C-alpha cells in the first residue's frame, strides 16, 4: 500500500525527475570489459574474449563473506558448469560460467533455475514414516533402526534377493560406486537405476558393436560436423545447451541438420530437413537410407574392409527394404529418404545423434545398432565431427552406468561372472568366499558354459530384476519368478516411479510390498501413489549441491563438484546414509575398509581413489581427485571445440579426462575425447575399435585389417592384452618388478598395478586390442537388426511380416511376454498411437523440478498433444479435459493441446507429471509442505507392457490409446 520512504533521499523530495545516481554504473558501461562480456556472450565463440570477461569478473571485489563454488548442473547429461555465490551459508547468486567449455555460461530453464535448490521449500525435511495413513516424524536413529531391522528380517525369511536396491542417476560417481558395492555386499544383483529405462539399449547395442556403450565424441565435437542427423532426439528440450553446439555447426559449417522424429519438435523447427516417421520404425528408416547408400556405392568401402565385420549380412537385410516398403512401413517417401541418405553421404563427417526416441522400444537394441551401422557404412566413426553422439539423460546417468548400478554388471562393465567378482573382491579387499556367502545359496537359472553344456548359474552370477520389471518381481506368482521369493522390500533411492510404465499395476505392487523405503530429497510420487497405511519410510537425502564429488557428463568427461551449501533441514548426503545403513546391516567394516569415515560421512576422495584402483576396463583409473579438481579450477584453459587444454595447469589434457583415461593417475593420460580415433596415438587419446568378441568367427577375421591407431607398433589388428601376450611380444620386461608381480597371469582389465596398460600404451597400442566393429551381434536375439512391429501396433497388416518375439519363460528372472501381447487386436478399441517425451522445464519424474516455482510456473498442466484433425473428429478443443486411456486400461485425465506437432493418429504426452492418479488428486497425501507446486497425471499410468529383447528396456515410445472428452 504505502510507499516506503526512499532511503537517503529525504532532501530530494521535490526533484521532478529522479536523477540517475550511479556514476559508477556509467563508468562501468564505458569500460571495455563490459563490452567484451557482451560480445562474448553474444557469439559465445571466442575463448580469448572469454578470459577477458573472466578477468573482469575476478577483479570485482567479492564481499568478504562470499564463497564462490564451482559446481555442475544436476539436471541433464550435458554437464553445464555453474558458479554459485554463497553468503553466510545462503546461496545468494548464480553466475554464468563463461569459461566452462561445455556451456559457456549458457543454461536452459532448469539450469538457470538451479539456485532455487538453495531455497528447498518443498523438500522432504525429516525422516518420516507412515503410521495409519499419517506421516509421522522420526529421528534418523529410529528410522535407520526400523528400516534395518525389517531388511534383516526379510533377508532372514526370503533371502537377500527379496530386497530391491533401486539406485539413481542422480548419485555422484562416488555414491553410485558405493551404492553398487552396498548392494553387492548385501548379496544381491537386484540393483538398478534409471539407465535401464533410458539408454540401456544404447549401452548394450553400441558396446556390442564396437566396444564401449557410450557417446563416442562430445557435444563440443559437433562443431566439426559437416552434417547432423538426429533421430528420436528432441535435444532442444532435453539437452538445450547441446543446441548451442549443433547450431554452431549448422551455421558455420553449413551443416545440414536432419531431424527424424514422429513429432515436429522444437529441435525439428531448426532442421534443414525434417522427416516424420511412424513411431517404432527406426530400423526400416535407417535401412531405407542404407538402401540408397549401398545402391549408389556411397558407403566407405575401405573403412568397412578395414574396420567392420558383417556388413555383407546387413546388405542382404537392407536389400529387402525397397523404397516402397520403407514408405509403407515408416511413412517416409523414397524422395525424402534418398535425400537424407544423399545428404549424409555428401557431407562427411556427419554425426548421428539419438536419444530415447530410439532406445525405448521392444527392439531398442536393434535401433541403436542400426544407427551405428549407418555410421560404420559411411565411415564416420573415429573421426572428429562424426561418431555417434548419444545424449544421455540425467546428469550422472553415464557415471552411474559406468559404476554398475545395474542388475547385470559390477562397476566398469566387468559383468557378474566369477572373474568380475574376484576382481572387485580384490579391489574392495574383501574375501571372495565371504562375498559369495552373502548371496542366496541356491541356483535360479540354467545357462550354458563355453562348450555348450548346460550348467546351473550361481545367484551371484545371475542377472537381477531390472527396474523396468520390479513390479513384476513383486506381483508375479512366486513360482514364476526365478528367485527364492518375490521382492518384498523396495528401496527407491533417488528414483521416481512415474517414469516407469504400467502405473496401475505399479500401484498394486506398492501395496503388496512389506516395506517401501524412499531415500530422496523429495517425497516423490512413490510416497503417495498407493493406498498404503503403513510400512513406508521417507529418508531425506541431499541434492548434489549439499555435498561434493565427481560426475560424468554424457561425453565421458568427469567433472568435480564443489559443495555449495550445507545439507538443508535434516537431510544427509547419500553416502552418509549408506554408511548408517550398512552399519546397521552389519557390513560397514567390509564396505568402508579402505575408506575413511569422518563421523558418519565417508570421505569422497577415498572413494574416488578406490574406484581408480579397479576401473581398468573403461579407464576410470587416471581420474584421481587431485586431477579432477585441477580441471575444475581451470575450466577456461580448455578449448571450446577440441576440449584440449591449451597451456595452463592441464596443458594437453582433455577436459574432465573423458574415459578411457588409461593407467594410473601418475601416467597422466589426457583422456580420450573422441573414441576410436586412429589419427591420434593412444597416449594422446587415440583408439581403435575394441577386440571384445574374439579374434575370428566362422573363419573370418574379427581383428582390424590394415588399420591401427597412430604410432602403434603392431601395425594390424591385435587381440586384447594379457600378461602372456606381453611376454610373447617381448614387452614384459618394460614392466617394473612391482608391476610384474602384480601383472603375472593378469590382463589389462584386472592388473591392479596398471603396468600392462602403461607398457601397451608406451608401444602405441590400445590395451583392449584392435578389432573390427561388428555389424552383426550374434549373441543377440536379432544378430542383424531387423524390424519388428511394436507389441501395441496400429498396423495389424504388418504383424505377419514383422512379428515380435516369442514369449519367454525366464528373462531377467521373469516371464516376459511378446507375442501373446501382440496377437490380440488392440487397435480396434485403441486407435491412436501414444508416445511420450520430455519438456524443457521438467526432468525425469519431475518431483524436483515441479517443486521449483520458477520452473513449475511455466508448465502448470499435464497435457496430451493431439492433431487438429483428431481433435475435430473427437469434438475436442484446446484446453478441454480429456481422458487418455491406454490399451491396458490405465486412464489419465489431462488437458488437450491441439497442435500439428503430432501427426494425425498420434498423441504425445510428457512424462514428468505425477501426483494425480486416474483423475484423483493425491495432494493431501504428501507430507505437509512437501507437495510439489504442480501435480498432474503420470503418462505412464496409461503406458503399457513391452520390454526390449536384450536389456528389458521399457516401451514408452509406441503404445496405443483412445482419447475421449472428460
Amino acid at each position, binding site marked *: 500500500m504505502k510507499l516506503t520512504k526512499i532511503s537517503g533521499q529525504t532532501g530530494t523530495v521535490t526533484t521532478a525527475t529522479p536523477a540517475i545516481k550511479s556514476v559508477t554504473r556509467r563508468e*562501468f558501461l564505458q569500460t571495455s570489459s563490459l563490452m567484451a562480456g557482451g560480445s562474448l556472450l553474444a557469439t559465445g565463440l571466442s575463448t580469448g574474449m572469454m578470459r577477458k570477461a573472466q578477468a573482469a569478473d575476478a577483479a570485482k571485489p567479492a564481499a568478504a563473506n562470499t564463497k564462490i563454488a564451482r559446481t555442475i548442473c544436476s539436471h541433464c547429461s550435458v554437464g553445464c558448469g555453474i558458479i554459485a555465490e554463497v553468503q553466510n551459508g545462503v546461496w545468494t547468486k548464480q553466475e554464468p560460467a563463461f569459461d566452462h567449455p561445455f556451456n559457456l555460461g549458457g543454461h536452459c530453464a532448469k*539450469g538457470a533455475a538451479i539456485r532455487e535448490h538453495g531455497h528447498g521449500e518443498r523438500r522432504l525435511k525429516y525422516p518420516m514414516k507412515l503410521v495409519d495413513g499419517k506421516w509421522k516424524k522420526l529421528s534418523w536413529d529410529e528410522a535407520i533402526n526400523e528400516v534395518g531391522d525389517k531388511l534383516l528380517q526379510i533377508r532372514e525369511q526370503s533371502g537377500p534377493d527379496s530386497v530391491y536396491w533401486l539406485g539413481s542417476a542422480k548419485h555422484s560417481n562416488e555414491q553410485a560406486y558405493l551404492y553398487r558395492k552396498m548392494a553387492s555386499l548385501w548379496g544381491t544383483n537386484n540393483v538398478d537405476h534409471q539407465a535401464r529405462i533410458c539408454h540401456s539399449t544404447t549401452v548394450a547395442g553400441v558396446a556390442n558393436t564396437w566396444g564401449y556403450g557410450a557417446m563416442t565424441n562430445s557435444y563440443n565435437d559437433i562443431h566439426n560436423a559437416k552434417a547432423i542427423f538426429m533421430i528420436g532426439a528432441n535435444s532442444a528440450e532435453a539437452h538445450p545447451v547441446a543446441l548451442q553446439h549443433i547450431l554452431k555447426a549448422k551455421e558455420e559449417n553449413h551443416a545440414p541438420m536432419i531431424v527424424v522424429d514422429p513429432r515436429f519438435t522444437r529441435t525439428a523447427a531448426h532442421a534443414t530437413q*525434417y522427416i*516424420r516417421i511412424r513411431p517404432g520404425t527406426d530400423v526400416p528408416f535407417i535401412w531405407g537410407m542404407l538402401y540408397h547408400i549401398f545402391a549408389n556405392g556411397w558407403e566407405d568401402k575401405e573403412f568397412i574392409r578395414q574396420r567392420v565385420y558383417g556388413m555383407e549380412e546387413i546388405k542382404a537385410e537392407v536389400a529387402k527394404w525397397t523404397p516402397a516398403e520403407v514408405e509403407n512401413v515408416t511413412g517416409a517417401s523414397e524422395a525424402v529418404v534418398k*535425400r537424407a541418405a544423399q545428404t549424409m553421404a555428401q557431407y562427411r563427417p556427419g554425426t548421428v545423434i539419438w536419444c530415447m526416441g530410439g532406445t525405448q522400444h521392444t527392439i531398442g537394441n536393434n535401433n541403436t545398432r542400426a544407427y551405428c551401422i549407418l555410421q560404420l557404412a559411411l565411415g564416420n566413426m573415429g573421426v572428429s565431427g562424426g561418431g555417434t553422439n548419444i545424449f544421455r539423460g540425467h546428469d550422472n546417468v553415464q557415471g552411474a552406468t559406468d559404476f554398475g548400478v545395474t542388475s547385470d554388471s559390477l562397476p566398469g562393465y566387468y559383468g557378474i561372472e566369477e572373474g568380475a567378482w574376484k576382481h572387485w573382491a580384490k579391489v574392495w579387499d574383501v574375501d571372495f568366499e565371504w562375498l559369495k556367502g552373502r548371496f542366496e545359496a541356491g541356483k535360479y537359472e540354467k545357462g550354458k558354459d563355453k562348450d555348450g553344456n548346460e550348467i546351473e548359474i550361481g545367484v551371484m552370477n545371475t542377472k537381477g530384476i531390472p527396474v523396468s520389471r520390479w513390479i513384476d518381481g513383486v506381483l508375479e506368482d512366486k513360482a514364476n519368478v526365478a528367485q527364492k521369493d518375490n521382492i518384498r522390500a523396495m528401496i527407491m533411492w533417488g528414483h521416481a516411479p512415474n517414469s516407469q510404465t504400467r502405473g496401475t499395476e505399479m500401484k498394486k505392487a506398492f501395496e503388496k510390498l512389506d516395506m517401501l523405503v524412499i531415500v530422496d530429497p523429495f517425497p516423490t510420487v512413490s510416497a503417495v501413489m498407493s493406498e498404503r497405511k503403513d510400512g513406508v519410510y521417507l529418508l531425506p537425502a541431499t541434492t548434489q549441491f549439499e555435498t561434493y564429488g565427481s560426475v560424468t557428463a554424457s561425453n565421458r568427461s568427469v567433472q568435480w563438484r564443489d559443495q555449495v551449501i550445507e545439507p538443508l533441514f535434516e537431510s544427509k548426503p547419500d553416502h552418509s546414509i549408506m554408511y548408517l545403513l550398512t552399519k546397521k546391516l552389519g557390513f560397514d567394516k567390509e564396505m568402508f575398509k579402505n575408506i575413511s569415515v569422518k563421523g558418519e560421512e565417508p570421505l569422497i576422495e577415498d572413494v574416488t581413489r578406490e574406484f581408480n584402483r579397479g576401473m581398468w576396463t573403461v579407464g576410470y583409473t587416471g581420474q584421481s581427485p587431485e586431477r579432477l579438481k585441477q580441471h575444475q579450477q581451470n575450466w577456461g584453459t580448455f578449448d571450446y571445440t577440441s576440449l584440449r587444454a591449451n597451456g595452463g595447469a592441464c596443458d594437453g589434457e582433455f577436459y574432465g579426462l573423458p574415459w578411457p583415461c588409461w593407467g594410473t593417475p601418475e601416467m597422466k593420460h589426457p583422456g580420450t575425447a573422441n573414441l576410436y580415433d586412429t589419427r591420434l596415438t593412444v597416449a594422446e587419446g587415440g583408439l581403435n575399435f575394441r577386440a571384445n568378441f574374439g579374434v575370428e568367427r566362422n573363419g573370418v577375421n574379427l581383428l582390424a585389417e590394415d588399420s591401427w591407431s597412430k604410432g602403434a607398433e603392431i601395425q594390424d589388428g591385435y587381440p586384447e592384452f594379457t600378461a602372456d601376450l606381453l611376454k610373447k611380444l617381448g614387452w614384459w620386461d618394460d614392466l617394473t618388478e612391482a608391476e610384474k608381480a602384480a601383472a603375472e597371469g593378469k590382463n589389462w582389465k584386472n592388473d591392479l598395478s596398471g603396468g600392462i596398460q602403461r607398457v601397451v600404451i608406451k608401444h602405441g597400442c590400445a590395451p583392449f586390442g584392435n578389432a573390427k566393429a561388428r555389424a552383426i551381434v550374434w549373441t543377440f536375439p536379432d544378430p542383424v537388426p531387423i524390424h519388428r512391429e511394436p507389441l501395441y501396433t496400429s498396423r495389424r497388416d504388418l504383424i505377419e511380416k514383422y512379428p515380435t518375439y516369442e514369449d519367454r519363460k525366464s528373462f531377467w528372472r521373469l516371464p516376459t511376454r511378446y507375442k501373446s501381447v501382440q496377437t490380440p487386436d488392440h487397435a480396434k478399441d485403441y486407435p491412436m498411437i501414444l508416445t511420450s517425451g520430455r519438456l524443457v522445464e521438467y526432468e525425469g519424474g519431475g518431483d524436483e523440478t515441479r517443486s521449483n516455482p520458477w520452473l513449475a*510456473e511455466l508448465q502448470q498442466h499435464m497435457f496430451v498433444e493431439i492433431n487438429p484433425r483428431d481433435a475435430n473428429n473427437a469434438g475436442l478443443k484446446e484446453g478441454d479435459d480429456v481422458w487418455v486411456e491406454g490399451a491396458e486400461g490405465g486412464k489419465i485425465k489431462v488437458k488437450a493441446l491441439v497442435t500439428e506437432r503430432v501427426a494425425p493418429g498420434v498423441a504425445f504426452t510428457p512424462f514428468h507429471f505425477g501426483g494425480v492418479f486416474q483423475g484423483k488428486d493425491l495432494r493431501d497425501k504428501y507430507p505437509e509442505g512437501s507437495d510439489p507446486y504442480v501435480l498432474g497425471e503420470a503418462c505412464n499410468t496409461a503406458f503399457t507392457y513391452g520390454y526390449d529383447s536384450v536389456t528389458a528396456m521399457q516401451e514408452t515410445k509406441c503404445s496405443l490409446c483412445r482419447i475421449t472428452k472428460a
Partner: protein
Amino acid sequence: MARMKFYCDSERCIECNGCVTACKNANEVPWGINRRRVVTIKDGQPGERSISVACMHCSDAPCQAVCPVNCFVTTPDGIVLHNKDTCIGCGYCFYACPFGAPQFPTDGAFSSRGKMDKCTFCAGGPEEADNSPEEFRKYGSNRIAEGKLPLCAEMCSTKALLAGDASVVSDIYRQRVVNRAASALLGGSGLQQTGFQPSVAGTGVTSVPPESGKATAEPTGMPADDVPPSTQVPAPLQ
C-alpha cells in the same frame, strides 16, 4: 555513449525458457510476474520460430510517454527504469507498450494491480543505492552496477538472446547473418516437412491429403533454396 539493447536471434532461440528462469533467479520476481517470456509462432509447423521478449528499453519509450506520474527514467545507457515509489499501478504503460513488458503483481478487482514491474536490464531501480537490499527487494539485482549484463542473456543456452551495447549486438548479429547467407549459398536449405501421415482406424479418417509441394524429388545435389531474395534487416533494435 553506450545504448543498451536486447536482441533475440530467432534462428537460434529454441524456447528453452532459460532466459525466463534466469530472470527469476536474478531478480526473485514472484510467481505470476514474468519480466521475460518466450513466444513461439507457427507452433508445430514448418517455419516455427521462437523469440524471447521483454522490455526492449525503447529509445522513445511509450510507457515513459504515457505514465501519469512520470515515473520512468531513461538512464544515460539507454536503460528504461521506473520508480516503484512513484508508480501508481494505473496500467497505462501496459496499454502503451507494444511488447507487453509491464507486469503487475495482481489483477485484482478495483484495479488493484500493485506496482508495475518490468525488466530493468538487470540495472536495479532508479533510486536506491546500488545493490542495496532495498533495491533488490523492489527491483531485483543490479548487475549493470557490477559490470555485468542481464542474466537472461548471459545464460541463454544457444546464445540467441544478445544484450549489450547496440553497436556490439548488431555487429554480432550481422556476422551471423553473413555466416548464414554463406550457408544458404553453399547449399543449406529451408525446412522440408515430409513423411508419415497415417490413416487412423476407427476415427473415420481414411486418407490424409498429401503435403503437396513439400516433398521434393531432386535427383541430384541439394534442393535449391526457396529463400525470398530479401536484404531487408528487420529493426527490432532501434
